[in-house]
């Protein structure tokens, strides 16, 4: 209890909101600054009002992330309303008018972009969804205010008639509200895309560390998985054949070449046969796990009788799932052998460099 009195907490939702709209690099330090200010200065001076102070700051942070999108949404909605008022047109029920299509596409672009950029910037899908939702709410509210202002300027009978023909006042005030869930939905799509792009281009530190731990294994294992999955797809769907010999020779040589490359690479860099063995085994395991996952997913999606016949003709499911693990064992032995050669070459290079004047 005394700890709570010494260190009062702001509303949890407001803290979560603040942390959602701060870049990951500054998330801890900036939210810590705000908490320090709250506990050190605001609570002693404002008492009960301190929570309101924190909520206002949290909304301020959110607004900084949302305002460009909110303005864009409001501008699109108000512009559409003003065009309908000033240049009336005839709307037919059930037919999408070009104006409606243009407005709809522009709004979708803004919603998706708001989610995408926020998720990219703040490194969280929920940040993208929050920004898209808030932009839809704020933009809708601003558009209602904008429509009220434009009605205050133009409210002659002719304009009111034009408004009535384009859906009426109900639509002007109701559509922004209806668009909130739609905008949030498109924001979710944008947020997922933004997060995927961020992960692909700026992988998180644990992924980078895992990759750095054994780059040779990830690269050679990935290529091996691609080559074997590609071979399976060729056999089963893309270009089925009854004569598998030529393809088997090519895919075998590719596989062997990748294990040789992994063994040489690690052996030369680390000057250690043990490391080459680990890289060989990891290469095989990464490839085997990736291949089995891809095959399982593709079979779940496509399992018609023709495909199953082709799979049976090319060795069956047991071969498809188990062969990659057998390849891993053979590949590890090969990586050890080539790693030993690379270690020998590397040590010779070291001796040569050391002997050079």
């Amino acid at each position, binding site marked *: 209890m005394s700890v709570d009195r010494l260190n009062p907490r702001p509303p949890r939702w407001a803290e979560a909101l603040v942390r959602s709209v701060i870049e990951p690099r*500054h998330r801890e330090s900036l939210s810590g600054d705000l*908490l320090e200010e709250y506990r050190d200065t605001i609570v002693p001076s404002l008492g009960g009002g301190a929570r309101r102070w924190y909520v206002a700051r949290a909304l*301020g942070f959110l607004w900084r992330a949302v305002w460009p999108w909110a303005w864009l949404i409001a501008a699109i909605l108000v512009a559409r309303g003003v065009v309908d008022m000033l240049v009336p047109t005839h709307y037919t029920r059930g037919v999408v008018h070009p104006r409606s299509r243009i407005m709809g596409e522009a709004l979708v672009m803004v919603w998706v972009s708001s989610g995408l950029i926020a998720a990219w910037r703040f490194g969280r899908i929920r940040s993208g969804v929050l920004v898209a939702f808030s932009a839809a709410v704020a933009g809708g509210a601003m558009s209602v205010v904008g429509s009220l202002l434009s009605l205050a300027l133009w409210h002659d009978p002719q304009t009111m008639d034009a408004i009535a023909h384009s859906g009426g006042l109900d639509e002007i005030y109701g559509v922004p509200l209806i668009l909130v869930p739609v905008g949030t939905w498109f924001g979710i799509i944008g947020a997922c895309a933004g997060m995927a792009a961020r992960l692909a281009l700026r992988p998180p530190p644990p992924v980078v560390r895992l990759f750095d731990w054994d780059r040779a294994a990830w690269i050679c294992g990935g290529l091996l998985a691609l080559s074997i999955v590609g071979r399976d797809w060729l056999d089963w769907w893309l270009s089925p054949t009854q004569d598998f010999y030529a393809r088997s020779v090519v895919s075998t040589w590719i596989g062997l070449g990748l294990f040789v490359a992994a063994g040489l690479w690690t052996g030369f860099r680390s000057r250690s046969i043990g490391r080459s063995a680990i890289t060989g085994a990891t290469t095989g395991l990464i490839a085997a796990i990736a291949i089995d996952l891809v095959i399982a997913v593709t079979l779940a999606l496509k399992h018609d009788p023709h495909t199953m016949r082709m799979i049976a003709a090319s060795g069956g499911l047991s071969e498809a799932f188990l062969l990659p693990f057998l390849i891993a064992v053979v590949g590890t032995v090969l990586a050890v052998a080539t790693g030993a050669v690379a270690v020998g070459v590397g040590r010779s290079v070291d001796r040569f460099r050391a002997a050079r004047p």
Partner: protein
Amino acid sequence: MADVLGGFEQAVLLAVVRLRDDAYGRAILKEVQKRLDRDVAAGAVHATLERLERKKLLSSRLGSGTPIRAGRPRRYYRVLPAGVQALNAARQAVDQIWRGIKWPLVTVRSTV
């Protein structure tokens, strides 16, 4: 070089210079508010610090957390040599502009 720095950027950079080893987000915000004698949004100072770091005028490091911050670390800022150069150039530009003019200016009633 002087046109690299805006007025607010100069205020933030000078706050970091003044605070020396204690230049972290909240302290910088308070220093800027004190010097500019107005309320300044924390987000505005944070965005400026970020921009100055991108321009390589500042560098930052994380300190340790304290209980009052729920263990969250402070980010301490330090002015880099390029930042000092930019501040000097900005000051020189202002001095140049004001050279030969008596300060404070006296309002001159227009006769037109």
